């Protein structure tokens, strides 16, 4: 029996964080929960934990209603914002978690030691959490989520890679892969799909509280058919955008450094470059890429918006 979410709605005053979300978190898979900031990812995770009460709909964990002790016993959680009571030392924090998870003194000590070593923060054990950097606190919280993990079935990680240095990102990626190999079920949120592409085998896309997609990553790429694109660097992106628009192209992303245009076919790239050069646009660099999963995700959101989604 997986984590089951049915008709979940949550509003904060006039703002709807989740609108009619129904999904299952399948056992044994790593789920990437993706959506832009404010799309409802954190609300969904907190609702599964029972920290947020649904406005309507139901959430159950292995048949237990969300928030019940029996449900929480199966869940491990890493919050997005690494807020921890600053008066606790790292060691004491993990001890508190171990007690709450029902571990004995010896188990608490050994699990805490192992978790801190895994995250490379053993040297911080005697430090008060309040004196740690944001990245260090995040690593400590990830370590805390591993205390009592034997009895855990589901790991809910809310933006676990945010705020970490590249070395720590690799450590955490390795850790998530290890958990996945052990048969644990992971629900990992991020607003950047690319971060999770290599570790997830299931994808959930939420946009403005609506569930846009749930399935495998391969199916998304196949059904949405992400288009290739050309990224052009130029000192005058505004001029480049005007030139392309006058020829019927729609530059998707225009920044102060350049622009990106999605193409029906990669061979169109040469035509784009010719058009820009003939109009006197200076091109300092360009790159043609095949459609990525990130592009497929963007296309999905774009299609949803073009259908008038999210206007309610």
């Amino acid at each position, binding site marked *: 029996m997986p984590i089951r979410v049915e008709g979940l709605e949550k509003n904060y005053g006039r703002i709807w964080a989740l609108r009619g979300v129904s999904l299952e978190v399948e056992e044994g898979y790593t789920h990437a929960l993706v959506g832009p900031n404010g799309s409802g990812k954190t609300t969904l995770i907190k609702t599964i934990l029972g920290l947020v009460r649904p406005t309507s709909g139901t959430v159950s964990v292995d048949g237990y209603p969300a928030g019940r002790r029996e449900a929480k016993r199966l869940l491990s959680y890493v*919050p997005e914002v690494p807020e921890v009571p600053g008066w606790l030392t790292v060691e004491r924090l993990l001890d508190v978690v171990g007690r709450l998870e029902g571990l004995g003194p010896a188990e608490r000590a050994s699990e805490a030691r192992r978790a801190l070593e895994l995250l490379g923060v053993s040297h911080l054990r005697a430090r008060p959490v309040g004196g740690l950097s944001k990245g260090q606190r995040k690593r400590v919280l990830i370590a805390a989520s591993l205390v009592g993990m034997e009895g855990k079935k589901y790991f809910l990680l809310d933006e676990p890679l945010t705020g970490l240095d590249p070395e720590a990102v690799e450590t955490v990626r390795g850790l998530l892969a290890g958990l996945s190999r052990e048969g644990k079920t992971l629900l990992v949120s991020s607003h950047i799909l690319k971060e999770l592409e290599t570790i997830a085998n299931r994808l959930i896309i939420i946009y403005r509280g609506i569930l846009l997609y749930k399935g495998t990553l391969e199916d998304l790429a196949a059904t949405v058919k992400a288009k290739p694109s050309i990224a052009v660097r130029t000192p005058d992106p505004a001029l480049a955008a005007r030139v392309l628009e006058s020829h019927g192209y729609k530059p998707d992303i225009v920044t102060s450094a350049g622009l990106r245009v999605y193409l029906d076919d990669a061979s169109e790239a040469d035509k784009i470059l010719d058009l820009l050069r003939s109009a006197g646009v200076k091109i300092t660099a360009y790159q043609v890429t095949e459609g990525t999963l990130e592009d497929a995700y963007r296309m999905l959101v774009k299609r949803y918006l073009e259908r008038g989604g999210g206007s309610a």
Partner: protein
Amino acid sequence: MPSARSTYIVAWYEAMRGLKKKTTILAIALVVIPLIAAVIARRYVDVSAMEHPERLWAVMAGLDESSGVPLALGGISGLTIVGLWWLIVILYSGDLYSSDARDGGWKLLLSRPIHRSDYILGKLASLIVELAVLAFLGVMSIIAAAWIIAGRQELIGYAVIVSLAMTFSGLPLALLTALIGMKFRSPLAGFIGGLTVYLLASVISGILAVYLTITGTGGNLLSSGYIAALATGVNPKVLAQAVYLRLAYGSVYNPFGAPMNITAEVMGHTITVSGTVNVSHILHLGLLTVTAWTALYAALTLLYFERIDM
């Protein structure tokens, strides 16, 4: 159903946090300051003028009355945990739940296998123990200060039960303060809310006392004062006084030593001004009202906490 084990862990967590609080430093200072003040004051106080120097601790604690006690000793009383009990109660309860809302404590504790009611009851249990320890230290500090000034003290065996009564009668104010802090997720809002409630209740109980006296409902002026203070539920010391008086004087207490009955006409009402208090009556009413207010605020806290998002 709450789990005893989870409740205990939350209580233990809160006790650890309590030891790190700045308020604890203030409380320790309030234990030491009266002793230093007493050492200084002893040479200036004329003990022979006191009617009952052996009960000076109770007078300084605001539990008893006695003639001949210099008003200046009130200054020392005001700098004790007992004298500032209302403030201690507010300071210790304002951040009971709200600090966890602010610093991630809710997410840390409540994402683990515990129920929300375990959290509330664990915190409450810890608060009761903390207040009981503080009340006892406060009473002991006053007893020591009085002993330094006036020598051997009597009735000190009542210290424990007076401390427990102080703790119990502080609970309505403590729970209301904690609830306000939780509602606004701010310890400061809790402190300000608790202080406001305490001051407003003091004014209301003053007005109520006059009303009860005028209508004759309260019996007499002194009794009306006690009844009014209990009715508002936020006077954190009145029950402790009732307990002390019952132990020290039995059912009836007359602070003036002799029966006094003055009847007067005020604004068309007949008022009886009497110094006699039926202590048993006040004590029973106190136990009833404090229990009722505590149960009400505890229930409101549990109900409210069940509904909120973290």
